[in-house]
Each structure stands twice: as structure tokens, then as C-alpha cells.
């Protein structure tokens, strides 16, 4: 019984190395399942791990969806959710596409334009939530409605075939290049690792560092764990909510742009598949829906597991319907596991009921029995 994973950063309190804690954590469990799956797939289909044709695309999608997962994880860390994550990705990617196609901007500038657009729409969402105190689910749902309408409309007005297809220098390299293209002193890297992994790794480290090393990250987690306590500790919670939504929007936009570079064109369909995956990754990885606890590694592993299952099912020729059924069932099983974990963690400290009945509870993520 450790309090290691209790909210608001108690895990940084080093209470000596506890190996059992590492072994029983959801992350190591995920690693185990991933290894078993890789073993099973490798044994059943020996040529499944052909570097350039299987591993590289798999790693590319893991890289993209890890960012999607982080975008959702940021918002979950303050106990809210972002239903519009896919639409924000489409919105950000749309601006990058416009920057390339209409304004002839170089690659990096266009990328920046998209990220700024994503953070503005995310920030706006956060501002509405903080200002009105309306449930984040409704605000992001309405935002996803609005963007779902706006994005295809803009595309059909500004581009002939409902897609931006200009490719400035560097886009191909980031989206489709592998380390085979990166040659130094006569030695080229393996074809199995896409170039995209590098910027994604930087972003992952940035997010991880934010939560683990900075005061800002601590404040965000405390806001998620207990917004009243955070307010009493002189944390400007409204600003933190806006900031978190802005970063989430920027991350979603980044994922959308990466997806566009890997497919080669900017279309309104970007981000269609993001919503389910964005919840799957963080939740499988142990991030709490109620806020206050996150796991960056867990999010990465959760995404990896989900995509590995998808790839495995494809290799064994299962249809898209089996995939959906499997993913849904995995989510349910993983969450029941989360539930058991929460119950076990909470047992030693008898936590009083979540909010006194007479306080306004609109700021809770989603009203349900889960937080009881």
C-alpha cells in the first residue's frame, strides 16, 4: 500500500525505491502486454516485422497518435475533457495548408501558423469554460460541432478539390522520410525509423518535463486534483484552465499537421479518428479521468498497444468491425482495472464524499458515479 500515485505530485516525494510499485504499475503491465503481442505477431507471421513496410508506418502512426493522446491527457489532467480534439487538429492543419497553398510560406513558418491557430482555438475553448463555468464536455462538444461545420466550408471555398496539396521543402522529409535518408560520415540510419519520431520525442519530453519539473505543471495538477484547494493556494486556476486548453489545441494541431505531412495533403477529413484514440491512450496508461494524475509514458504505451492491436488484426486479415469491437472491449476491461486500482489506493485514506451537496458542481468533469 503506497500512496505513490496519489494526486498532486506525491510521486515526486521519493520514499525510497519501491520495486513492487514499478512492477504493479499499469505502465509495466502495458509493457508486458505489448511484448507478448509483439512476440505472438512475430511468431505467427515471421515476415511481419519488415522494417520499411511494416515497422516504419506503425511507428509513424504511433508518433502521431501519441501527440493526440497527449492533447487529451493535458485536458484530463485538470479533470476536464476535450471532445473537439479531432476538429482542432483539422482546424490547425487547415491553417498550415492555407499557409503553404495560398500564402506560399516556407515549411517551418507554415507549421508555426498551424500551431498558433490550434492554440488560439484551444485557448478560446478554455476561456469559454473558465469564464462561464459550463461543463467542459458541452463546450468542447459545441466547439466540435462548430469546427465540424467551419472546416469543410473553408476548404470548399478556398481550394478547388477540397484539399491543399502544396508541398514546400521539408514536408516530404518530415512526413515520409526515414533515417535511411539521414546520412552522416558515410553511414545511414535504419529504414524502420521515421524522421517524425524526433520532433514527437521532443514534444513528449517537453510535456513530461512540464509536469515533472516545473512549478506550472504542479499547479496544473493541483488544479485538476482539487480546484478549490488550488484556488486557496493562490493558483490562478482560470488562467491554468485556459493555458491547458491552449496547449491541448496546439498539440492537436501538431498531430493534425503531422498526419497531413505523412499522407501528403491537407483535407477536412484529418482528425476524424482522433477522438476515441485520444481517450484510449491516456486512460489505458493510467491517467485519471477525475484529474490530478497523469502519465506521459503510460499515454505513449496505451497508444502503442491500441495501434499494435490494430496492426495485428490487419495482419491476420480481420475486418474493421472486429477492430472496433476489440478496442471497445479493451477500453472497458482497462477501465474496470483502473477502478479496482482507484479503490485500492483510496482505501487507506478515507476520502470524504467528493463535493458537499450544496456546492455548485458544474465544474466537475462529468457528473457520474465514478467520482463517488
Amino acid at each position, binding site marked *: 500500500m503506497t500512496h505513490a500515485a496519489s494526486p498532486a505530485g506525491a510521486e515526486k516525494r521519493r520514499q525510497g525505491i519501491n520495486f513492487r510499485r514499478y512492477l504493479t504499475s499499469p505502465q509495466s503491465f502495458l509493457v508486458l502486454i505489448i511484448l507478448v503481442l509483439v512476440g505472438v505477431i512475430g511468431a505467427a507471421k515471421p515476415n511481419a516485422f519488415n522494417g520499411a513496410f511494416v515497422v516504419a508506418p506503425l511507428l509513424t502512426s504511433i508518433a502521431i497518435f501519441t501527440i493526440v493522446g497527449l492533447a487529451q491527457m493535458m485536458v484530463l489532467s485538470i479533470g476536464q475533457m476535450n471532445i473537439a480534439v479531432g476538429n482542432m487538429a483539422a482546424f490547425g492543419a487547415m491553417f498550415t495548408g492555407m499557409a503553404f497553398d495560398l500564402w506560399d510560406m516556407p515549411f517551418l513558418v507554415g507549421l508555426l501558423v498551424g500551431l498558433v491557430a490550434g492554440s488560439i482555438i484551444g485557448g478560446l475553448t478554455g476561456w469559454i469554460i473558465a469564464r462561464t463555468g459550463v461543463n467542459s464536455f458541452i463546450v468542447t462538444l459545441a466547439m466540435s460541432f*462548430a469546427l465540424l*461545420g467551419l472546416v469543410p466550408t473553408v476548404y470548399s471555398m478556398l481550394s478547388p478539390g477540397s484539399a491543399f496539396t502544396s508541398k514546400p521543402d521539408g514536408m516530404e522529409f518530415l512526413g515520409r522520410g526515414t533515417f535511411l535518408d539521414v546520412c552522416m560520415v558515410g553511414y545511414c540510419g535504419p529504414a524502420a525509423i521515421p524522421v517524425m519520431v524526433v520532433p514527437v520525442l521532443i514534444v513528449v519530453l517537453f510535456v513530461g518535463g512540464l509536469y515533472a519539473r516545473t512549478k506550472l505543471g504542479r499547479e496544473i495538477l493541483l488544479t485538476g486534483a482539487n480546484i478549490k484547494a488550488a484556488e486557496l493556494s493562490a493558483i490562478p486556476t482560470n488562467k491554468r484552465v485556459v493555458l491547458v486548453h491552449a496547449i491541448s489545441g496546439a498539440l492537436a494541431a501538431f498531430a493534425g499537421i503531422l498526419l497531413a505531412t505523412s499522407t501528403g495533403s491537407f483535407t477536412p477529413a484529418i482528425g476524424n479518428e482522433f477522438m476515441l484514440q485520444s481517450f484510449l491512450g491516456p486512460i489505458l496508461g493510467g491517467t485519471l479521468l477525475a484529474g490530478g494524475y497523469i502519465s506521459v509514458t503510460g499515454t505513449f504505451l496505451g497508444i502503442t498497444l491500441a495501434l499494435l492491436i490494430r496492426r495485428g488484426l490487419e495482419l491476420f486479415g480481420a475486418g474493421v468491425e472486429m477492430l472496433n469491437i476489440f478496442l471497445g472491449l479493451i477500453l472497458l476491461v482497462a477501465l474496470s482495472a483502473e477502478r479496482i486500482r482507484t479503490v485500492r489506493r483510496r482505501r487507506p485514506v478515507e476520502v470524504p464524499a467528493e463535493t458537499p451537496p450544496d456546492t455548485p458542481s458544474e465544474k466537475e468533469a462529468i457528473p457520474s458515479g465514478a467520482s463517488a
Partner: protein
Amino acid sequence: MKFKLPATMGSQYLVLIATIVLGAILLGVSSGGNFFGPVSMQTFFQFLAVPILIGLAQMITLAVGQLNLAIGAIGGVAACLAAVMVADWGFNPWLGGLVALVVGAVAGIANGILVVVTKINGFIVTLATMTVLLGVQYALVNTRTISADNWKSVAALGKASWFGLPAIFVIAIIVAVMVGLAFKFTTTGRHLLASGDNEHAATLAGISNDRSLTIAHGASGLIAGFAGFISFTSLPGVNQSVGGDWLLSSFAAPIIGGVSLTGGTVAVFGTVLAAFVVRLVDSARAEFQLAPAWVNLVIGAVILGTVALGRLRETRETAKAGMLRARVANHRINAAAVENTAAEEVKL
């Protein structure tokens, strides 16, 4: 229990009714009166049945403070299973329709039981069951469209008209009235609202929250299944896209209609009116030949506006209530002071 003041309730309905009347007149004028023609009116009401039903299905889960993301998937599976049973396995079409209802109820109860037993957030549970059901729906029909010619007797209901209105619209209204009566007059309905408003208080009053959650999800699933059945009767064919676009509009109707997300309130009339508004936006889109995307944009903006306004009104009301309470308290203190001095004067 949270009761809205009749006055504010009335004003909200008035706004919705005014919007509908104004929108209908504008549409009528811009279409040169065609909008009020019999054919156009018939289509308008025919495609209003499903939005009303899914709005009600969502409203019931919102009443207990839950969400149901699986409404579209439940309706889709119900319609597809009915179609496959009738077209491929040769069952009686009416039996297929009955199965659609049963599927909806079973799926809804499964949602409820999962929420109760695992204590997982209803959002995630229904997200997961939605994914599973979408897979099942795809497995049932694959990429084909099963034509309604296979169930002509049931499809006749979709085209029939009672009292000058499409039969399915009348049925949807009957369902709405039944839901409204159930929430108003049955013990179970009151229990659902009590659980949704304050689960601790409900427990203390001897109400089983677990039972409330299961019943709410079950009823929501049943109505979603019914919406699937209505699609089965009225659409020219059933394929995997049935139910695909229900998710957002199922939330739009109750939220615009004045149902709170935190539970404890229902607004059947408001939900039905809001479904009218959504349908009007859709008709306007068709009238002006805009891209379907515009509907989403407008509805998104309307939802945001509604929740922001509702929130504003709530804050104002609490402020007003606070002022009133302060005034009463002041008055009491003053009265006590006056009495004290009076008593002292008497002593002197």
C-alpha cells in the same frame, strides 16, 4: 429537487416558439410559399420524428446526470439487425421491428449495469459500448444497403399519415408525452430526478441510485432502439450509416431545450421544441442549397449561446436570491433590535 421557476421556464419556451415561428415564416417567404406546401410539410414532419426521439433518449440519461454516447450506435444496430432478420433470415417484418426495440432496451440496460457495477464514468462506458456496437453494426450489414422493399408492410407505416400528419411524427409525439407523464406522475420518474439532482440526498431518502441509473440507461436505450425502428420504417434502405449522425443532435435538443447537464431536470416540451429548431436549420440549409457542414456550424453556435445565456441567468438568479436572503436577515436583526429597545423602554 431543482425546480425551475415557471416564469423563466415560460420565457425559454417562448423564445424557442418565437424562433420556430419566425424561422418558418422566413423559410416560407424565401421559398415563395413552397415551404408550406403539403409535400414539403410532410417531409418536414417525417424527418422530425427521429430527432425528437434521440433528444428524448439523451434527455433521460441527462436527467440522472449521465451521458449516453451510444445512442446512434444502439439505433443503428437495432435498425440493421431488424433489416438483416427480415431480408436475410425471412422473419416477419413486425417481429423485426419488435427485435429492434428489444435490442435497444438490452443495450441500454447493459450500459446501465456496466456503469453501476464498475463505477466507471458513464461517458467512457458508453464510448466503449458505442465502439463495440459500431463494430457489430458493420459486421451485420457490411457495405451493402438493404432495401426497404423487403418489409413493405412496415414501410407503409413510415409513409402513412394520421390526422394529416405523418404517422411516425404522431408516434414520436406520443412517446414524448409518455416520457413527460412518466417523469411527472410516476414514483420511478421522481426517483430518477432525485438521484440526478443529488445522489447523497436520494440515498438518504431511501432511493436506490443504482436502480435509477440502470432504469435511465435502459429507457434511453429503448427509445434509441425505437428511433432505430422509425428509421427502419421510414428510410428507403438501411445501411451502416444509420445512426452515424445522431450523436451531436441528440445532445443539441435537450441542451437547447433547457436540460441541465448536472442532472435533476427534464424538459420534454423544450426538447421537442429544440428538435423543431434543429430541423428548421436543416430545412433552411436545404432551401438555400448550402453545404451540410453549415448545419453543424449553426447548431454549435446555438448550443454555446444557450449554455452561456443559461449560465448567466443562473448567476443572476443566485445573486438575486442572495440579496433577498440578506434583506430578510437584515430585517430580522432590525426587528429584534426594535423589540429589544421596546422591551428596555418598558422596563424603564
